[in-house]
């Protein structure tokens, strides 16, 4: 037993004080009687005249002393010590590959069974934290009891994207740091992720491999572009990958809205792929590709595109000379450029020069900015790019070697911005996300460079438009990718959930694969978009990760405390009540 407030025991001094009070001889109550005759024969007790006496061992004194002692102990906040319960952290892999079916059961359901087994082994004091590792790591239940954990497990569903297992491991590590005794972490996954850093893992870690080898043929890519020759409609491109261990012959079906296009039979070698294109008729809104027969991962056997209509999305341009931007954006299907407005609802906004305060909602392309978000620190001249992040989608397929910037600004670099195009004198192109908002920064005025004269300019703007508003090209996004939508609109997810978009309009709940419907406040359909597993490259393999097994003996002897001051306080009150009752009964008041 321990005391949270040891000073509370000072109240025990009231007990001897009470005894001292009882030691004072009480003044006798004078009672008139008819005659002393009846009392004369009573044996006369010699009573001391001393003011003090030996404390009488009366029931009232005993009750009062016990009540005071109980009250003092309650104020000291005693607590019972008991062996500490284990804290188990279960990481559930919720990636798309966990949807793979084996013997009629998905890997995710197998993982749930494993987690259920772990939960049944929890003792009364044990607690369990359940982490769902999808594109983002979410906590399904924190330090919950067995019953709460079982409810949380039952409610879990897999996503369509990859699993952020590194993030989940970081969360577990944070939990271990804040727990005296440490944690016992268990990763339930098919192992479809790279090698994780384990040097900081100081807690007990166990990897439970879920699933085995399966044959999976997937629609790995589905995209659409306007035909380069200016014809109407779209050209759709699909890449079919055979991720199994045997050659497979499949039927590939495509539908333009509800009109089926000719089915194609394809033979895909093991580990190989095949590419297909379709001429999508003009006016098609939805284009669907599916393969048969169904394999172990049915969710990646189908992909959907929503094709934007011309000028469907508005881009606001805030510039004194917007002509070059309007010309480039006008060539991009689905976008309509509007100048000098920052009204809500724009796909993204291009701002040149001084930044308004506040900034418009949504994603931003900032040209040579000057404002609270980006404060210039100086200027540099005659700058040429020398470092290029070729993997960045903003500069994919672009040759900027001929770029010459005559005048550029230098900035205090916010930590949320990454350099895409660098130079010896400072960054030229930056990109990053701040609170879910995507921002691209050009540190120079294109007119103070030769960029607008280069062929790379319209390509860069197209890439920027794709990155800033993915639905502008083809209305499909990768699982977990955030999306800027009109605040107040409602999104119906593929599983039927309805999510209202809160200001400032960032929608992040895109982990499910399937079709999302966005409706306005009046219930009118604003847009539809698809989340395909094809946009989150992953294979339905099952990989063991022996490096993730780190048995650590949990510390013993740690204790937890359970305060029980309340029963003591109740006892003290009950004793005082009983003492009062006895007093009243003796006085004849009751």
């Amino acid at each position, binding site marked *: 037993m321990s005391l949270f407030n040891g000073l509370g025991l000072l109240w025990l001094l009231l007990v001897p004080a009470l005894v001292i009070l009882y030691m004072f001889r009480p003044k006798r109550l004078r009672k008139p009687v008819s005659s002393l005759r009846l009392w004369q024969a*009573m044996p006369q007790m010699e009573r001391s005249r001393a003011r003090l006496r030996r404390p009488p061992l009366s029931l009232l004194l005993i009750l009062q002393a016990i009540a005071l002692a109980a009250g003092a102990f309650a104020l000291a906040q005693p607590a019972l010590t008991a062996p500490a319960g284990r804290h188990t952290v279960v990481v559930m892999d919720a990636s798309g590959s966990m949807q793979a079916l084996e013997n009629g059961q998905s890997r995710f359901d197998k993982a749930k069974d494993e987690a259920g087994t772990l939960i049944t082994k929890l003792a009364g004091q044990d607690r369990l934290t359940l982490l769902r590792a999808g594109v983002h790591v979410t906590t399904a239940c924190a330090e919950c009891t067995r019953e709460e954990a079982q409810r949380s497990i039952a409610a879990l569903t897999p996503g369509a994207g990859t699993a952020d297992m590194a993030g989940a491991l970081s969360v577990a590590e944070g939990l271990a740091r804040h727990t005296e005794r440490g944690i016992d972490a268990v990763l339930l996954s098919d192992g479809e992720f790279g090698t994780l850093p384990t040097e900081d893992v100081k807690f007990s870690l166990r990897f439970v491999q879920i699933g085995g080898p399966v044959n999976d043929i997937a629609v790995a890519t589905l995209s659409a572009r306007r035909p380069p020759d200016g014809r109407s409609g779209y050209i759709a491109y699909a890449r079919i990958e055979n991720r199994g261990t045997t050659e497979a012959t499949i039927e590939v079906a495509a539908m333009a809205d509800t009109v089926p296009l000719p089915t194609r039979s394809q033979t895909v070698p093991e580990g190989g792929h095949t590419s297909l294109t379709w001429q999508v008729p003009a006016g098609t809104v939805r284009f669907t590709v599916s393969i048969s027969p169904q394999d172990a991962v049915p969710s990646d056997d189908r992909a959907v595109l929503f094709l934007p209509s011309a000028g469907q999305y508005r881009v606001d341009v805030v510039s004194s000379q917007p002509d070059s931007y309007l010309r480039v954006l006008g060539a991009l299907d689905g976008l309509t450029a509007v100048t000098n407005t920052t009204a809500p609802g724009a796909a993204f906004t291009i701002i040149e020069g001084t930044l308004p305060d506040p900034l418009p909602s949504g994603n931003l392309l900032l040209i040579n900015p000057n404002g609270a978000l980006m404060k210039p620190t100086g200027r540099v001249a005659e700058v040429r790019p020398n470092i290029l992040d070729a993997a960045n989608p903003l500069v994919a397929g672009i040759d900027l070697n001929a770029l010459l910037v005559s005048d550029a600004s230098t900035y205090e670099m916010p930590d949320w911005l990454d350099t895409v195009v660098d130079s010896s004198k400072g960054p030229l192109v930056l990109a990053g996300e701040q609170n879910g908002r995507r921002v691209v920064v050009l540190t120079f005025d294109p007119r103070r460079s030769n960029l607008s004269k280069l062929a790379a300019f319209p390509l860069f703007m197209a890439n920027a438009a794709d990155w800033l508003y993915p639905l502008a090209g083809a209305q499909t996004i990768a699982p977990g990718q955030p999306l800027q939508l009109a605040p107040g609109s409602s999104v119906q997810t593929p599983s039927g959930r309805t999510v209202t978009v809160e200001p400032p309009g960032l929608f992040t709940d895109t982990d499910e694969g399937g079709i999302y419907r966005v409706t306005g406040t009046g219930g009118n359909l604003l847009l539809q978009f698809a989340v395909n597993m094809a946009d989150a490259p992953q294979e339905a393999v099952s990989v063991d990760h022996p490096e993730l097994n780190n048995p650590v003996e949990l510390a013993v002897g740690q204790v937890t405390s359970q305060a029980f001051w309340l029963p003591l306080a109740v006892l003290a009150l009950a004793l005082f009540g009983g003492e009062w009752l006895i007093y009243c009964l*003796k006085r004849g008041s009751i």
Partner: protein
Amino acid sequence: MRAARDLRSVFSGFRKRVTRAGRPAANDSGMVVDGDLLQKLDRLSLSLGRDLIHGLMGEHLAVRRTSGIEFADYRQYSAGDDLRRVDWNAYARLGTLHVRQSQAEHDTLLYLLVDGSPSMEFGQPSKFLLARRLAAALGYIALAHLDGVVMTTPGAVEDARKPSGASLQSSSLNTIFRGRAEAGSLFRTLQALKTQSVAQFDDLMVGWTARHGQGRIAVVISDLLLDGYRDGVLQLLSSGFQVTVLHVLSSEELSPPDMGDLELLDSETGALMDVYLGKEGLDEYLRQLRAWLADSEEWVRSHGANYLMVHSEWDVERIMLDMLRRRGVTA
């Protein structure tokens, strides 16, 4: 007849204050008489041994007949009355039977002693109130049957705030009431009394035998907390009185409520006494009380007197119609 009407008017002023059960009414105002009770008392008479009757009384049969009678009043005939005393002339006029009542030359007297010492003020209602109620009831029975009543209230004084029609010289002196017409005076006198001081009974009772010299009926109503009554009772008994002792005690004397350290104050002497009344002390008190009561009763009975202990809370009607009747005091 006029005298009877006067009595009715006096009685009508008194409300029924005493319950018929053993407990007092919550709003007991301390009235000594109850009109309903008086009507019931009309059926009772004092029970006298035949050797006690020496003169001609209206209703008591005497061994020795008397020749001289004086008409006093009429009353309605009731079963058992001597038919020789029915007034047939009145029957011829009124159609109802009336009995002639006469006043003996040598009155039969009821001697009442009501203890007025301060100790009688205890109890709820007080012992003194019950004593006065019993005295009123017994006195009414005597007066209603043409017996005389001699009353003395040692220790009591008249309460000046209350009107009294009685010619009391002193509360402790003998006061004589005769005839039904003086019942109202008896009641008013009793109503006006209050306790004041301690007085010895012996001299008063000896005085009864000296002044009247003839043995009759004597009723002593007291809590007997002073031993001074025994000589007087012995003197009365030896003088041929039929003596009844009504021992009045209150519930707080029979079962003291207060426990703990007490400083007892004697209401009569002012003496103080320290006691610790715990459970053992209370048991000892009750044991002493029972012994004292048994001793008092035994002493009274062993000398040929009647003894009855009554609680101050008891109903007068119950005492008069039941307890005293069973002990042969009334008939």
